[in-house]
C-alpha cells in the first residue's frame, strides 16, 4: 500500500480512483436518481419513499458500482429488496436500472471501458436484488 501524489491515471489506479472517487459519485447521484424517478417502468418501486433516504441509498449503490469502499453484503441486499420483489420486481426492472447507470456515466463523459467495469460490478448484485 502506498499513498501516491499522482493525480494522472496510472496503471495501479483502482476503478474508483479512475472514475474520480467520491466527487464523481456526488456528480452522478442526482442525474441517476432523476432518470430512475422519471422512468414510468420502474418509478412505482421508488414511490412513497423518503426522497432523501432514497438518494443516500442510490449513493451507496453508485459507490459500490464505481468500485469504491463498501461493505456489500448479499444478504442485506436481499432483505432490502424483498418487499419490492413481492411487488413484482423482476429482471426487466433491473435491466432498466442498469440502462440508467450506463446513461448517467455516458452523460458524465466516462470512457466506455470504465462504464463496462462499473456495469459489471452492478450486474453482480442481480441475483441478490431479485431474490433469486
Amino acid at each position, binding site marked *: 500500500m502506498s499513498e501516491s501524489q499522482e493525480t494522472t491515471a496510472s496503471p495501479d489506479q483502482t476503478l474508483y480512483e479512475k472514475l474520480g472517487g*467520491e466527487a464523481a459519485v*456526488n456528480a452522478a*447521484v*442526482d442525474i441517476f*436518481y*432523476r432518470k430512475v*424517478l*422519471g422512468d414510468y417502468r420502474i418509478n412505482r418501486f421508488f414511490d412513497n419513499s423518503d*426522497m*432523501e*433516504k432514497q*438518494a*443516500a*441509498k442510490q*449513493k*451507496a449503490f453508485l*459507490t459500490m458500482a464505481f468500485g469504491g*469502499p*463498501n*461493505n456489500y453484503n448479499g444478504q442485506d441486499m436481499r432483505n432490502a429488496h424483498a418487499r419490492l420483489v413481492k411487488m413484482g420486481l423482476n429482471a426487466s426492472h433491473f435491466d432498466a436500472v442498469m440502462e440508467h447507470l450506463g446513461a448517467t456515466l455516458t452523460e458524465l463523459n466516462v470512457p466506455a471501458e470504465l462504464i463496462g467495469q462499473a456495469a459489471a460490478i452492478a450486474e453482480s448484485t442481480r441475483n441478490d436484488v431479485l431474490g433469486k
Partner: protein
Amino acid sequence: MRSITIGESTFSCQPDETVLETLLRENVQVPNGCRQGLCQACLMRSLDNSPPASAQVGLKDTLQKQKYFLACVCRPEQNMTVVLPNQQGASIEAGVIKKQRLTPDIIRVVLEYQTPFNFFAGQFVNLKRADGLTRSYSIANIPQNDNILEFHIRRLPNGQFSSWVHDELEPGAQLTLSEAQGSCHYLSGRAEQPLMLIGTGSGLAPLYGILADALAQDHSGPIHLYHGSRDLNGLYFVEEMRELAAEFDNFHYTSCVSGDASESDHVKGRAHDIALSSIETLKGWRVFLCGHPEMVNQSKRMAFMKGASMADIYADSFHVMQENK
C-alpha cells in the same frame, strides 16, 4: 483517548474506534446500516464540540451547521456529548406576550423567553402546555437579541391544542418549549443563488422567517415566494408581503387561492403548481417547501425532476397529530 457522553453515561473511545463502534461495544442501541457513511441511519448530533468534517460528508448543510454527524465514520478528535436525532435536549419556559388574530383561522402568538435559546428562523419547537399536551410549531422570526419567538397557529378541526390557543390562551400564560429542531432554514453563503419558497396556510410561518433571514443577510439572488390556500382564511400577511416586494427588487410574491375566491386579486390555482410551472428549470436553485404534507412531497419530487439538486431542497411537512377523542 476521547470520551463520548450519551444520556447519563460516558464511554472511552478506543484509538481508531468510531463513535458507532464505541457505543455498540458498550451496548448502547444505535440504529445503523452501511457503516461507511452513506445510508445515514446512524445520524446523531454533538451538543458541544464539533465533529470532524469527514464525519459530516453528504449531510445537508443545515444539519452540518447544527453539528449532526454520521457515527459510523466519526473518529472523534475531541470529547463529545452526543444525542440521537429524536432525543430531546433541555427545555425552556416562555411567556405569552402577544396574541393577534390574522385571519379567522390563523392566530399570531409571540412568546418571550428568559434563558439563552439558539434557533434559526424556520426551525420548529414543541410547545407544551401545563397538562403536557404538546404540538410542534415553526418559528416565524429571526433571532435579534430581543428574546422573542413568533408562531402562526392555524385552528384545525377538532384540534385540541390549536383550539385552546385560539379560544383560551391569554397573554401572561407560560408554555414549555423544546429546543429548536429541523433542517429547513436559511444559511448564508451562495448569496446569488435564486430561491424558491412555496408554502400553504400557516406554512408561511417558517417561510416568513427564512425570507427575513435571507433579506437580513443580504441575499442578492432573486427570491420567489408563493403562498397558497384553499380559501381566503388561510392567506395572511398579504399586504406585508406586497410591501416587501415593493421595497426589495429581488423579492417577488404571489398569493394563490385554489378554491373559490372570485373577486379576489389572488392567482387562482394551487401554489406549487403555479410556482413550478412558472419557470423552465430549477437547476442551481435553492428550494424551501412548507405546509401540507402532500403538497410538500409532490413539490419535492417536482422540484428535483425540474433540476434542483437534492441537497438544495429544504422541506418541512406539517403533519397533523391524530387526536384521540
